[in-house]
Structures are given as C-alpha cells and as structure tokens.
C-alpha cells in the first residue's frame, strides 16, 4: 500500500478502528453522562462534530467502535439538553478543569526539538516562534512541535504543584473530588468534581486561576507590612502566605546582581537588597516577613515577589479553566496527534508515572515508513532518530507516533 499523504490518514484511521474494536470496554462513561455534551474529530474531515449526547457507556462505546474518531471530547459542563444548540442547552454547572501543556512554558529541550517557519518569507528557527519574524516582520508561522521525556517531566512537575495547591489550600479530597489525566500528548488535565465547584461562575473561576498562578499577589497582604504587629506566626505550609515566603527566600538566595538589576528595582534598592541579603534571608527563614521592609522597600519587594512566585505557582492554561463550556478529552480514548491514550493516573502513582510507556496504545510489530523529518523519538524505553528524509522500519509505537504527527507516511 502506497499513500501519497504525509500521515497516511487511511492507515492510521484503520489502526484506530481496530484499537477501539478490541479495547473499547476500557472506556468508561463520565459521571452524569446524560448531562454531558460530546464532541469528536474524525479522520475524514476537519470540522468538529459536537452537540452529541449518550444515555450510557454502552451507547458511547458503540459510537467509538463505529466511527473510531481521531479525537474524543466531553464537556466539563452539565446540561439539561446536551444535544441542543449552545443557547438552548441549559447550563447546570461545570467541573473545574485545569490544563497543563508543555507547549505553554519555555523549557530548554524545545530548542532541540521544536521549529518554526515563517509563512511569508520562509525564515526558520528552533524553539518557540518569535513575536514577529526577524526576516520580514510578519507574525504567521508554521510550527513543528515535538515532545520528549523532559517536556513531559516538566508538565508533570507543574501538575504536582497544582495538586498541592488544590489539596492543601482548597481542601479538595484526592481521588474522590480530584482526578488527574495524562492528556495523551504534551500534558496533564486535572478535574475537580465536587458540589462546591459545580456552580462557580467565570468570575470565580478566574479568581481560582489567579490564585493558582499567583497573579495579582501583593506583598503587603503576604505579611510584608510593618504597620501590622501582633498575632501568631504563619506556617510555611499555609497557602500563599507560606509559599510567598519560600518563593522569596529561594529567589533572593540564588539571585545574582545582574538578575536583581534586570527586575527594574531602583539602583539603591538593588544595592540594599544585595548588601543585606543574609539578614533578609534570616528574617524570611524565621517567618518575620514584616521586618524585611526595613531593608527593602515594599514596592521593590512587590517586584521581587511577582517574579519569585512563578516558581511556586503552577503553569495552567488560563482560558481552559475559565471556560465553563469547555470540551475536554475523555480518558482511555486515543489522541490523534500521538496515537497515545488520554489516561487517568491515580494521584498516588503520579510521581512514578511514565506516559511514554503507560499511555502508548499501539505496540507489537514493526512498520516500514518514510520519514520527512523528525527529532530523536523516545518511546517505551527505545530511542530512534533523528530522521531526515529517510525510509526505515520502526517499532509500531514509534511509527504510529510519527504518522500521527504527519511527519511520515507508510512505505510500500
């Protein structure tokens, strides 16, 4: 079989069909399935088929076997009539969902495996595309994003920080109210299912996003205020009060004079900070943030804090969490851009979880493919590549991944 198209869509679609025929029983109905909207992307055409509803897991599974979609989503929202048009659905509430995607943060490995090309002048580069093309000044790029164990570790680290905040600060109970899914590609989804969050409006969800990301944190309200004396000490485990002290400690302990100058602090403030570094660190360690103001003015502390909290905050996609009609991937279904599974990970197992072995759906056998271009691919303990316009025989997992990425086609 020779196909001309990169990605060999027909071949991949057939593999998906076989996968669902054999494994569909692992797909479970989300809670309150009758109130959920479903959406699908198919291999045939580019639009999303949505506003679909199912009575139970059985119907959903039949659908997956019959259509073997390339991507499968369900709504975080609950509706009276999930199949109705948007304005008639009757929104009843929504789970609180968080999306962590390695594509949203900058990590060194992206320079190795990601590339961009300007649509206008053809200028090329590695890593994230620039704000505008250095060649022609336009801002439309073709992006080629890959992933590697480092990206996935970075995403997992953010997911763990997020979980810590959700459990310690928000008081959600792991497993019962909180679940974590590997997204099937570059990240993790965290779902909160609880009566207390279901009715939260967009405004409230936005405040939660700001909390998770440390947006709008104000030093004065984190204890850096000399005017307010009296009372007990804060524990370092106590929400942002503790986290901000830790963040500032870590930042100030490591900061070089150049880093401090780059923050835009006044010259005098920067000098004072560096001169009194040990004293300030001591005050932070003793949890007396109030007295730090004696050495660095409140405004400068605010600037330091804004940067410092980034390390403690979790990098979530702000749009996903604030969207109360969001469609999100259904666990145990296939991701059309990787050939991997979206997969629930028990929270206790997250630290040891390795998606590159656990979530790989297509294993067994090998496949001859023609690869356009790809960086090194590491799946299930085996590394192949990099590739540049070549034909080779690869294990099924690697071959399917490259096909799903449209970086290869099946060779005859």
């Amino acid at each position: 079989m020779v196909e001309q198209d990169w990605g060999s869509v027909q071949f991949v679609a057939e593999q998906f069909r076989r996968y669902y025929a054999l494994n569909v029983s692992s797909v479970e109905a989300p809670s309150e399935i009758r109130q959920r909207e479903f959406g699908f992307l198919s291999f045939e055409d580019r639009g999303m088929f949505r506003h679909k509803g199912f009575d139970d897991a059985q119907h959903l599974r039949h659908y997956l076997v019959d259509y073997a979609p390339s991507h499968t989503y369900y709504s975080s929202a609950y509706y009276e009539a999930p199949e109705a048009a948007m304005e008639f659905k009757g929104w009843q509430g929504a789970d609180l969902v968080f999306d962590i995607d390695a594509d949203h943060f900058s990590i060194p490995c992206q320079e190795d495996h990601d590339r961009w090309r300007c649509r206008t002048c053809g200028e090329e580069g590695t890593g994230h595309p620039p704000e505008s093309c250095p060649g022609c000044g336009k801002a439309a790029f073709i992006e080629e994003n890959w992933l590697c164990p480092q990206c996935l570790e970075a995403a997992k680290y953010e997911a763990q920080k997020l979980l810590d905040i959700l459990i310690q600060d928000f008081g959600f109970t792991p497993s019962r109210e909180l679940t974590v899914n590997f997204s099937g590609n570059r990240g993790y989804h965290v779902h909160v299912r609880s009566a207390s969050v279901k009715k939260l409006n967009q405004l409230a969800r936005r405040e939660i996003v700001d909390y998770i990301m440390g947006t709008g944190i104000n030093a004065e309200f984190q204890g850096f205020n000399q005017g307010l004396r009296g009372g007990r000490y804060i524990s370092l485990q106590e929400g942002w009060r503790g986290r901000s002290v830790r963040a500032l400690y870590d930042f100030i302990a490591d900061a070089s004079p150049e880093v401090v100058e780059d923050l835009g602090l006044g010259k005098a403030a920067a000098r004072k900070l560096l001169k009194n570094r040990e004293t300030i660190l001591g005050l932070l360690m003793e949890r007396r943030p109030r007295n730090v103001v004696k050495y660095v003015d409140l405004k400068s502390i605010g600037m330091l804090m804004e940067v410092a909290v980034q390390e403690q905050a979790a990098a979530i996609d702000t749009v996903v969490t604030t969207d109360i009609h969001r469609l999100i991937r259904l666990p145990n279904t296939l991701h059309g851009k990787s050939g991997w599974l979206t997969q629930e990970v028990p929270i206790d197992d997250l630290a040891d979880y390795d998606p590159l072995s656990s979530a790989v759906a297509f294993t067994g056998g090998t496949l001859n493919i023609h690869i356009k271009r790809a960086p090194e691919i590491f799946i299930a303990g085996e590394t192949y590549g990099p590739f540049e316009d070549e034909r080779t025989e690869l294990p099924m997992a690697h071959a399917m991944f490259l096909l799903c990425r449209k970086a290869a086609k099946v060779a005859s």
Partner: protein
Amino acid sequence: MISEREAAKYPFLSEAARLVDMLDLTLDDLAEPVHAKVLDRAEGRVSEAILKGKASANLGDSLTELLSFPVANMFITALGERFLDRRYALSEAVRAYELLNDESEARVAKMARTEFQWDLRLVRELLDGRLYRFELHFNDFLGNAAAFREPKWKLVNRLMRDGYVLLTNPETTRLLQEEIRRRIGGLISKHRGLRLPEPLQARVDRLGRTFEENRSSITGGDLPTDVLVEGFPPCMRYAFEGLMAGRRAGHMERFALTSFLINAGMDIDEIVKLFVSVTDFDEQFTRYQIEHIAGLRGGRTRYTPPSCSTLRTHGVCHNPDSLCKRVKHPLSYYRIKIQDIRGKQEDKPAE
C-alpha cells in the same frame, strides 16, 4: 419568628417577608391615607438611592420601616430603569451593611448561614495585628468577592487553608452586603411595567422626574463616534501598536482589541482592513470573526471587551498607568480619557 424590629432592620430576610405577608395588605389598602407614612418612607428610600446611593435606617417606627421596603421595591419595579435597579439594590445593601457592623459575630453568622446558606465558621485568630473572627468556604467567598477589585479581596491575597478563607468581622459583613445586594436585585426584577393605583403612581412619577434630573450625573456619558487612539488604555494601545508592528498576539489579546475597537466605534471595514494589512489573515475569515464579535452574526450578541481583571488573568494587561487604578474596564478608561481630551480642547481659547 423574627421580631418586628429585626424585620425592620433587615426587611429582605425571608422571615421579614413572611411578617409582611401576614399583615395581608393590598395595593388599595396602601393607597388609603392611613398608610401615607409608609408611602412617604418608601419614596424616601428610593430618592435616597437616587441622590445619595445609600438608604438611611429609620428604626423609630419599625412597622413603617418594614412595610416601606416592599413598597419601595414596587416603586423601583414600576420605574423600570435598569440602572436604577442596581443603584437601589446597592443603596439598600449598604444600609444593611452599616446595621450589621453593630451586630454580634453570632448574629452575623446566623444570618449568613440560615438566610444565605454560607459555609461559615466562627474562629478567633490574631494575625498581623488583625483579629480574624470567621472562616468562610472559598465557594461562598468567591460568589461575593470575585467582583471586588481591591487587592485585599483577591483570593491569592487571602489566608486560605483546607478550603476556608479567614475573614475579619467587617470583611464578613462587607461580603454579606454583596449577597444582600443580589437578593434585593432579585426581588425587584420580577414583574416589569407595573401600573399602580393613582396615589402610588403619582409618587412613582415624581421619583421618575428626580431620576431624570440626576441621570447624567450618576450614569456617565456616551462614547464619541470617531476613534481617538490617544484615549486608548495602555493595554489596548499595546495591542493596537503590536498589531501595527506585526507582533504575534494571543487569541485573548486579539479578541480584546477587536471588541474594544468595535465598542469604541471603529467601522467594521476599517478593522478588517487593519487586520488583513498587517497580518496575512484571510480577509473573508477575518471579516467573519469580526462581524461575529460585533454581533452581526451567530448569536447576535455584541461582545464587549473583557474587564481589566480578566485581561490581567490572561496576561493582556500591559503598562497600567494611574488612571488604570481607578477603572475596572478598558472602555471606562477610554470614556474618561476622551472626556479629558475633549475638556482640554474646549478649554483652548478660540482662534
């Protein structure tokens, strides 16, 4: 059952409403001269809302104070001015807030729990020189504080553990004020276009005139039809100049800028031209999206730009200046700035 005095203080409580129901008064009864005091006080409440934005508490005559509340609600409903609905609800809520500040913690907690189903616990913790007396579940906290814009109300600036937010006594009553404001808003929006018996209608008409006389000073003016870039808030200027320079912008920034330009009165064709000329977006597709935001397609909703806090969340807020501190919305910034610019132009001596 609640006492008449308690009901007079907090007439929006469900028990207070039951007390009023038990009196079984009809509209015609109210039109009788014996009830003139009630009508006077109701009219007073509404005009206080219009003129001062805050109702007083006249607890000397509890029954009049209590009965005047549903009557004032009826006046507001009959007036049918949405802006006034909001102003009145706030005015009554501020009245309740001031009364609540003199109550014991136990009384405040009781109202919050039984009337508004708050998950609220009494505590006693001294921190940073502040005495925290309550712990409120974040869900109830956000339901009321999420719209506030002072930094101290941001969840990230609160002490929260295990899902509960520490609050001082005045903070708790401030949040209750918000809850009460919504409750009262709900009480008045139900039946529109009410026509009242004559003696009552005369009062409504009088209140209508008071509102008209003060409308412009309490509602603010309209936007100009030509777009003045000098009046743009820093975030929109950043987005606009970025677009001109061909900088890559995220979805939220493009949406914010487009809806801002539409609401600032820029012509759709001009916006399309702008986007197409500086990016290589497909013209038809760009037009479709812009018309969608303008409410000419799809759900027919004309979108307004997101508020300042939303823009901050999504990283679209850049270089805020001193005027930014005073506004919550990029369009309010624009409105104020435009008036400033025009004021200066008018001040210039004629040539």
